[in-house]
Every structure is written in structure tokens, then in C-alpha cells.
């Protein structure tokens, strides 16, 4: 470099290199490997769509997706084993992405949950074969208008939308970055990267396509609305601190910033910028976790989306969004916690109560699970509010436990079918335990986990977040949380009673026998639920070791 510079100077007469030359960015590819693998596979997936013959696309895509997720998970494990979760944790990619305990833990959780969710995407035995070709839960041709001739032709030709796999991979890549994002712009880009494919995926249901498309449009509109809030918040915070970097903003909030230039001096006294900006960013994140009053999209979208997508979304989105929320509150705004804690308190209380109360009168199992996920968002918020290492630990554990219960529960929903596809109306589930004891028993396990009954992961998770919240002085919150759990237990147990103690209806649904793919998903769900309920210690400790953020 120096010889080059000197040689250069011989004939340009420029004595010095320009002082404000833009430094070449350094990217720690190895540390970003999990995300890069998934993005790479997604890009490959698009090439597969373009070049691989239709017949073998499905197999190539499933293999590519699972292999990518598995190797990404291996990369996460490798990084964690290499000490990046604790001692070597640092900020990679020029301050854009954090590689630390919470990030790796959540990425691992997202990847594992995605693998089992992808198994349900690939399920091709549940829907009756269309014209002798096996089909999955997704529309034959998403672009064709529902009910049109082109749709009929696509169905007759046995088309399937194998694009779901690259779409899911893009979404997963965004989710991997989301909790690791260490500046506000990366946060926003990650948000959009995982949101846009999800909007599409929601619209792809094979049956009840209008409802599915309506759900997708609603999700898109409201998601765009919330993105606008988030973006506005980012602008305000940038205006306040003069930087989008988490670390710089945190320093400015704490008042420990080193060199204050005049521009910063004039804005950093303006708390309104900070408070409104922070509140708007929280709004955007609370929308993604489905907290009240930003939850309205949840039931409609959960109901309309293809059930495998619902399960994936309910689990992975929640993990990613809570990860980002944790990082925002613990890394960027800890200096502001006396301002945001009471507000989050209120949000947590309203979320727990509203989710539990409204769920009581639901009659559709997917909507029921949607409200249940809202209530669970409230419980997790209780752990977020603890502002302690235990709080982070409990939230990480809860997210992991909850993901597998959720994906498993939605996978069971895909099995219970009648002539119109999935039979999601609760009245049709009456007496299921008589007809298909195993399916009903498995669903009962998941419901008991949702309700937080001991010996399931739900109990351990709830116990952990409530304990952390109580130790941080949020006793009232815990009392309300327990009361909400009691209300929530009512409707979970009601479904169990319905399944086991009601007479089966004559024209009731049948339980389809799935391929080993969905069976694996459900079996993993049950195994994790029971393992984290019976012997949670190892995983609690793992979450505890991963509970320190790098700044």
C-alpha cells in the first residue's frame, strides 16, 4: 500500500493521501455466517425456481432449506462454543450487528423453530391429492385469481408454490438479523426483510384463498403503518443523538458521551425527541410481538394465513421481535428505564388481560391460539420489564419454550380436517379424544403447556418470568399475570374438556395421517415441551449464560 501511495505521489504531486478518505469496511464473515448461509440459500432457492424443472423443484427446495437451516444452526453453535456468547462477544460489521449471547441464543431458537416449521410447509399428505398429484397447504398458483379459470388450470396441472421455501428463508434471514441489529437502520432493514416475505406467505393458502388474501392485505397495511411509526421514531432518535448506532445513542442518553459537538449539544437537551422517538420505535416492535393495543391484526392474520405459516410466524416472529425489543430497552434505552418501565407495565397488563379475556369467547381454534399468543406476549413482557439478567434469562427461556409449543399446536391443527379442509371451528373438535386419542392427547399436552401447568415447559417459562418480575418489584404485575393465567387456563382446559368429555359428532372431522415430516414437528414439540418442563435446569442455565448484551 505504501509503495503504491509513493508511486502514486510521483506523478500526481499530491503530497498526502486525503485525510477524510472513507475507510474500507471490514466484515467479519465468519461471525455473520448463520445469516449469510440463510441468505445465500434463499438466493439459491430463487435460482432453483428459475432453472430446476418443476417436477424436482420441491425436493431440491426442501433439501436446500433444511440443509441451510441446519448448517446455519451449526454455525450458531460453533460461534457460541467459540466464546462469542460470552467473553468474545462483540459488535461485528462496522457496528451494525452484535454477536453476543442473546443474539446467538435467539438465532439458535429461530433456526430450530424454523426447521420444524419448514417440515410442516413441506407436508404433502394432508390435503387430498388434486388430480393425482400430491399438494401442500399452499395455493397452486398464487397469482391466479381465486375461482378463476387460470386457478383451475393450475390446480389441474398439479402446480405447487415451491417459492414458499426461499420466501421463508428470506424471512428467517431477516429474523436472524433483527435481534442482533445494533443500529437503528439495520433494525429497520431487518424488519422489512422478514416482514415482506411473511405478507406474501400469508396470502398463499390453498383453501379459503380470499380469506387468506384478505389477511395478507390487512397484515401488509397495518405492518406498513407500524413500519412508518418505527421509521419516524428512528428519525427522531437520530435527530436527538446524531447517530443511529445503539452504543452512541445509549451514551448520549446516559450523558456519558465523550466529545460533544455543537450540533449534538443543541439537540441532546431536547428530551421530547428522545421520548417520542423511543416510544415510536417501541410501537413498531410491540406491533410485531402483538401487544395490546397493537394486536388487532393477530387474530385475523393467524386465522387467514395457511396454518403452517401461522405456526412459523407465531413462533419465529415473536422470538425475533422480542429479541429486538430486549436489545432496544436493555442496550439503547436503559438510561430511560424510569420512563419506559411504567408504560411497559401498563402495556403488559393490558396485553395479558385482553388476550386472556377475549380468548374466552372464541369459537375458532386458530383465533383462540392467536389470542393466546397475545396473552403470552403479555407474560413475556413481564419478564422484559424486570430489567435484570434474570429478566433476560427468563425471556430467552420463555421464547424457546413457547416457540415449540406453538409450532406443535398449529401442526396438530393441520391434521384435523373435514371436506372443507382444516376443521378449525371448535364445535367440530368435540369428542376428538374418543375418536383419535393420540392426536387429542398431544394437543392436550400443548394446551396444558400454554396454560402453564407444571411438568410442561409453559410452567417453567411462566415461573421464570414471574419470578424475575417479582424480584424487580413488579409484584402487582405478577398478581395480574397469575390472574390472567387463571382466565387463560379456562379456555385451554375447555378445549380439553370438549375433546375428551363431549360426545363426538356424527359428521365430525377426521384426523389425517401425516407424513413423517409433520410427525417429526409434533414429536419434537411434545419432547421439548416435556423436557423443558421436567428437566429445565440445563436450558435455564444456558439462557442464563446467554443473558449479557454486548454494547
Amino acid at each position, binding site marked *: 500500500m505504501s509503495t503504491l501511495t509513493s508511486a502514486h505521489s510521483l506523478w500526481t504531486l499530491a503530497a498526502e493521501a486525503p485525510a477524510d478518505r472513507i475507510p474500507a469496511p471490514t466484515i467479519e464473515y465468519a461471525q455473520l455466517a448463520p445469516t449469510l448461509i440463510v441468505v445465500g440459500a434463499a438466493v439459491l432457492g430463487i435460482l432453483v425456481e428459475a432453472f430446476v424443472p418443476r417436477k424436482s423443484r420441491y425436493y431440491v427446495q426442501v433439501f436446500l432449506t433444511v440443509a441451510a437451516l441446519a448448517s446455519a444452526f451449526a454455525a450458531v453453535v460453533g460461534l457460541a462454543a467459540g466464546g462469542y456468547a460470552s467473553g468474545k462477544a462483540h459488535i461485528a460489521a462496522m457496528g451494525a450487528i452484535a454477536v453476543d449471547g442473546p443474539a446467538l441464543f435467539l438465532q439458535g431458537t429461530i433456526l430450530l423453530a424454523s426447521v420444524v416449521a419448514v417440515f410442516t410447509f413441506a407436508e404433502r399428505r394432508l390435503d387430498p391429492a388434486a388430480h393425482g398429484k400430491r399438494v401442500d397447504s399452499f395455493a397452486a398458483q398464487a397469482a391466479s385469481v381465486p375461482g378463476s379459470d387460470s386457478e383451475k388450470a393450475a390446480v389441474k396441472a398439479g402446480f405447487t408454490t415451491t417459492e414458499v421455501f426461499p420466501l421463508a428463508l428470506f424471512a428467517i434471514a431477516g429474523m436472524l438479523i433483527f435481534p442482533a441489529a445494533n443500529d437503528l437502520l439495520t433494525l429497520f432493514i431487518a424488519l422489512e426483510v422478514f416482514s415482506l416475505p411473511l405478507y406474501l406467505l400469508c396470502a398463499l393458502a390453498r383453501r379459503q384463498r380470499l380469506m387468506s388474501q384478505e389477511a395478507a392485505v390487512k397484515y401488509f*397495511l*397495518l405492518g406498513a403503518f407500524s413500519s412508518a411509526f418505527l421509521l419516524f421514531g428512528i428519525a427522531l432518535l437520530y435527530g436527538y443523538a446524531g447517530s443511529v448506532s445503539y452504543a452512541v445513542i445509549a451514551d448520549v442518553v446516559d450523558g456519558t458521551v465523550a466529545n460533544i459537538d455543537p450540533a449534538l449539544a443543541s439537540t441532546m437537551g431536547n428530551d421530547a425527541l428522545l421520548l417520542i422517538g423511543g416510544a415510536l420505535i417501541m410501537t413498531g416492535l410491540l*406491533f410485531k410481538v402483538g401487544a395490546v*393495543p397493537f394486536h*388487532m391484526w393477530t387474530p385475523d392474520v393467524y386465522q387467514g394465513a395457511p396454518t403452517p405459516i401461522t405456526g412459523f410466524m407465531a413462533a419465529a416472529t415473536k422470538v425475533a421481535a422480542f429479541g429486538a425489543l430486549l436489545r432496544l430497552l436493555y442496550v439503547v434505552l436503559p438510561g430511560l428505564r424510569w*420512563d419506559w418501565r411504567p*408504560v411497559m407495565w401498563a*402495556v403488559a397488563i393490558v396485553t395479558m388481560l385482553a388476550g386472556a379475556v377475549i380468548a374466552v369467547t372464541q369459537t375458532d381454534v386458530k383465533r383462540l391460539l392467536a389470542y393466546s399468543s397475545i396473552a403470552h406476549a403479555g407474560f413475556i413482557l413481564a419478564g422484559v420489564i424486570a430489567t435484570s439478567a434474570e429478566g433476560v434469562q427468563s425471556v430467552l427461556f420463555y421464547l424457546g419454550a413457547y416457540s415449540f409449543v406453538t409450532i406443535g399446536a398449529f401442526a396438530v391443527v393441520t391434521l384435523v380436517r373435514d371436506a372443507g379442509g382444516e376443521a378449525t371451528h371448535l364445535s367440530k373438535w368435540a369428542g376428538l379424544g374418543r375418536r383419535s386419542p393420540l392426536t387429542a392427547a398431544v394437543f392436550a399436552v400443548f394446551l396444558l403447556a400454554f396454560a402453564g401447568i407444571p411438568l410442561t415447559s409453559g410452567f417453567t417459562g411462566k415461573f421464570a418470568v414471574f419470578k424475575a418480575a417479582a424480584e424487580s418489584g413488579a409484584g402487582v404485575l405478577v398478581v395480574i399475570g397469575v390472574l390472567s393465567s387463571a382466565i387463560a387456563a*379456562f379456555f385451554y382446559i375447555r378445549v380439553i374438556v370438549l375433546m375428551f368429555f363431549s360426545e363426538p359428532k356424527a359428521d365430525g372431522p377426521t384426523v389425517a395421517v401425516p407424513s413423517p415430516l409433520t410427525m417429526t414437528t409434533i414429536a419434537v414439540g411434545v419432547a421439548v415441551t416435556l423436557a423443558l418442563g421436567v428437566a429445565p435446569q440445563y436450558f435455564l442455565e444456558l439462557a442464563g449464560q446467554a443473558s449479557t448484551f454486548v454494547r
Partner: protein
Amino acid sequence: MENLIALLVAAPLLGAVVLLCGGRRLDKVGHWIGTLLAAVSFGIGVALFADMLGRTAEDRTLTQNLYTWIPVEGFQADMAFQLDQLSMTFVLLISGVGTLIHVYSIGYMEHDERRRRFFGYLNLFVAAMLLLVLADNYLLLYFGWEGVGLASYLLIGFWQHKPSAATAAKKAFLVNRVGDIGLSIAIMLMFTTFGTFAFEPVLASVGETSEGTLTAIGLMLLLAACGKSAQVPLQSWLGDAMEGPTPVSALIHAATMVTAGVYLIVRSAAIFNGAPDAQLVVTVVGAVTLLFGAIVGCAKDDIKKALAGSTMSQIGYMILAAGLGPIGYVFAIMHLVTHGFFKAGLFLGAGSVMHGMNDEVDMRKYGGLRKYMPVTYATFGLGYLAIIGFPGLSGFFSKDMIIEAAFAKGGTEGWILGGVTLLGAGITAFYMTRVMLLTFFGEKRWQPDAGGELPHPHESPKSMTLPMVILALGSVFAGAFFEIGERFLKWLEPVTGYEHGNPPVSAMTVTAATMVVLVIGIAIAWTMYGRKPVPVVAPRGSLLTRAARKDLYQDDFNHVVLVRGGEHLTRSLVYLDHSVVDGVVNGTAASVGGLSGRLRKLQNGYARSYAVSMFGGTVVLIAATLLMRAV
């Protein structure tokens, strides 16, 4: 040697598991497996006994800690065994008599298609009972205690097709539950008082504990003993328990399980020694049951129920002796062992008689059987002589010792207790003579059975008579063997302690008095049942006879006081539950449901109203954040 202790329990437990899980393919050999494993346990017991005899008295206690059963900080329960002279005595009794009864059952249950299961339950019982007496802490003892309760329940109701058997099993289970509550409370009290429930630390730290606490623990232990050992007021189940197969009655409801209460009290001697009030209650319970059982035994025509009354009465003797403190513990156990021999023998004899008489149990329909069943007659007769305390036989020594000890208690108390035990000895002589006369002497009063067939009494097969003979030998010689040179006393004294009591009258006088009441009892029975023919249909009888036939109205008492009272209590609780609790609950549920329905309307499906909600939420969020700062 101590490593063998666990095997004592493991062998029959293995048998139970194999037999109960093995399925039908073991039907042919199941009884042999069960008997063999019980015999293995007995063999190990004998080996340990021989080893123990080779040591000095101080060195005889063996312990084996298998593993920590419940490892919680501040609450540790070990799966640990303790084998001392007291446990050893029980081990030999349980596994020895148990093995004999296994052998007997091979013949007795020959035609029962569920014989394999029966032997599985018997093995389970032997394992649980051995665990009970080998435990080195109260919690493990409790485990065994519940185990024998379970086995007893299963075996009483073994002929589950008979509603009476099912009911009897349930009754035994429920009544035992009351006693078990006593044991669990006692263990909880021990834990709060001593911080542990292992025998050694608990019994060693009794001296530092207030008498009130010890009395409370003692009374709770007594409640437990009352349940398991069928003592007043929890005695009502034992008579009905005779619905079970006769070997069960012999093993569980005569020789072993029902004596667990005596074991518990003697094992907890230190606690009772420190609580004279509890001891007094123990003696009262023993004395009352002693007479109660004896009176009931006089009136029953069912041979097994008469023997059950007798069992109750004899255990009353043991409990009474255990309540006397160090002057009585050894004799309580000694009577327990001799009783194990002769009562088991009597029950097996009764079973043998029933076997020959088409399962007829009414003694009024027996008569004159001595010619037809000579072995049964001889062994039953020896058991009879032993239980009434005929000089030189087992019961003579052990019962005499208890009567002496009761007098030696001293004061009015001593006279009363002594008088009761003496009276009991007389009544025992009466009812046992009655059983003997009705069954083996007099004219044949055989009646055709349900199929219209007259019974053809015959001697039972060898597998049944052999155990009876062995038990009869025990009935004859055990007492003398124990008494000569005070062998039993010296053997057990290091564990239970012993004080020599001085009765206010000489021992010779007591023995003479016993002989007198014995003769009177036999004479009355002879007058009533030997001299004149016995009617096949029971006469109406005196008021006392009628009361005794109905178990002195114990069931009616329980019904009126407990069942009715319980019904009233539950009814009022149900009312309270319906009107108040449900009112609150349903009210809450209704309001939650109503709120839910109203909130649900907010979810109208229009993206625009969702957006408004989000916008409103954001505004509120920002306002709240700013407000927090302003406050």
C-alpha cells in the same frame, strides 16, 4: 452381611413384578415362582439370623443405605435399612410364616384361574411388610405401611366378582386411611420437632423434647396402629376382611400385617416412654379391644369371623402390653410371635375345614369333623390349646407374661388392667372351646349346599396339611423355647429395654388365677355346646349375644356418627359451595365472558379501525411516556 438386607425385600418384590407383569404364560409356574422367592427371602433371613447370633448384643444392629430416596436440602429421606433384633424377629416371622402360607395356597387356590395373580399379590405383601419392618426411618416405614395396605386391599377383594368382597376391601381401605392420616401427621410432627425422621436421631433426641409434643406424636402413632391393627375405634374392617381367601386371612389378617401397629409402638418405645399419658391411652385401647374382640368372637357362627374377633382380642393383649412400657414391650412381641404361629395355624385349619365342606363357613353346619379330617383336627386342636393358654404350650407363656405385667403396672390401674386381661383369658377359653366343639365334636349338622349336594368332608392335600403341621409345632413349642432361660427376653432386651415389674401378688397366684378362669371358660362352653345338641339355626339369644353378633353395633355406630355426620357436613358444604363459592366463581366467569363478548366486537375485521386502534395506542403510549417524565 448387611448387603443382604435389601435382598430380603428384593426377592419377593421381584416375584411380584414378574408374576403381575408376566402375563398368562406364567400361569403354570406362577405359584412356584412366588413360593420360591418367598422361601429365598426366608433363607436370607435365616442366614442373617445365624450371623447375628454370632455377634455380641451391642454389635447386632446392621444398617444398609441403598441410596438417597428424596434428596432435597433440609429434607433427606434415605432408602436405608436397619436390621436389629426386633426387625430380625419380624423378618423370620414374616418370611417364615409367609413361605408356609405360600405353600398352603398352592393347594388352596388350585382351582382358581387367577392363582398367578394371587401369588403376585402375596409376594407384593411380603415385600412391603419386610420393607415396613426393615426401614431405618419413619418415612420409609410409611412406604411399607401403605404397601401392605395396598396388598391387603387387593387380597381382601381378590374375589372381586363377589360384591361383599369388593365392599369389604373398600371398607378396609377407607378405615385404614384414617389410621394412615395419624401416621403421616406423626411423621410431620417428628420432622418439625426433630428435623428428621430417621429412627436413630429421633429416638435419641426424645429427652430434649417436651412431654406435650411426645404425647401428640404418640397419640398419632397410636391412631395409625389402631387402623392397621384393627383396634377400637378403627376395628370395624377386620371382620369383613374375612371375605378374602383364607390364606390371606391367615397371613395378613392374623399373623403379620395386623401386628404392624404393635411393631410401630414398640419401635417408637422411646417416644412412648416419654409420654405417660399416651401410654395410658394405649393400654386403654388395648384393654377395650381385648374385651371387644373376645365378646364378638363368642357370638359369631362364621368360623373365620370368630377367629377374626379372636385376632382383634389377641392384638389387644399385645397393644396393652406395649402400653405398659419397658415391663411389657418384650412380652408384646413374644405374644405376637407365638400368636403368629397359632393364629396362622388356626386360620389354615379353618381354611382346610372349609375346603372339605364346600366352602361352608357357618360352624353350626359343621360338627363331628374330627373323624373325617384327623390332621386338621390335630393341628387345629394344638392351636386351640395354645391360644387358650393351656399349660406348657406357646400361648400359656406369652399370655401369662402379659397378665403378670399388667398387674405389675401397679395401683388401681394395675388391678383394672390385670383384671381385664384375666377376664379376657376366660372369654378366650370360652369362645375357642365353642369353635372347637361346634366344628369337630357333636353330631353332624351338615347341610346341602346351593347345588343340593351334601358335603363330603375329606382331609386336605399335603401342600395344605404340611404348613399346618409346622405351624402346630410352633404353637406347641415356641413359647417354652422362648421362655426357658429367658431366651427371648435376653434377645430383645437390647432393643426394647426391659424393667422387671413386681406384681402385687405372686406370679404363682396369677398363673393359678389364669388356670381357674380358663377352666371356667371351658366349662361354660362345654355346658352350652358340648352337652346338648347345637341347633342349626342360631337361636335368638340374649341381648348381649345379639349385640355381639352385630359386632357390638360398631357399624351402626359408624354409620350414625361418621357416615350421617359426614353426609350432613358434605351436604352443607355442597350448599355453601353452590350458593357462595359457585356464585362468586360463576359471577366472575359470567363477567369475564360478558367483557370478552364486548371486547370481541372491537375486532370488527376492518383494517381501518385496527389502524385507528394502533394510532390511538401510539398516542397514548407517547403521552404516557411524556407524562412519566413530567411527573
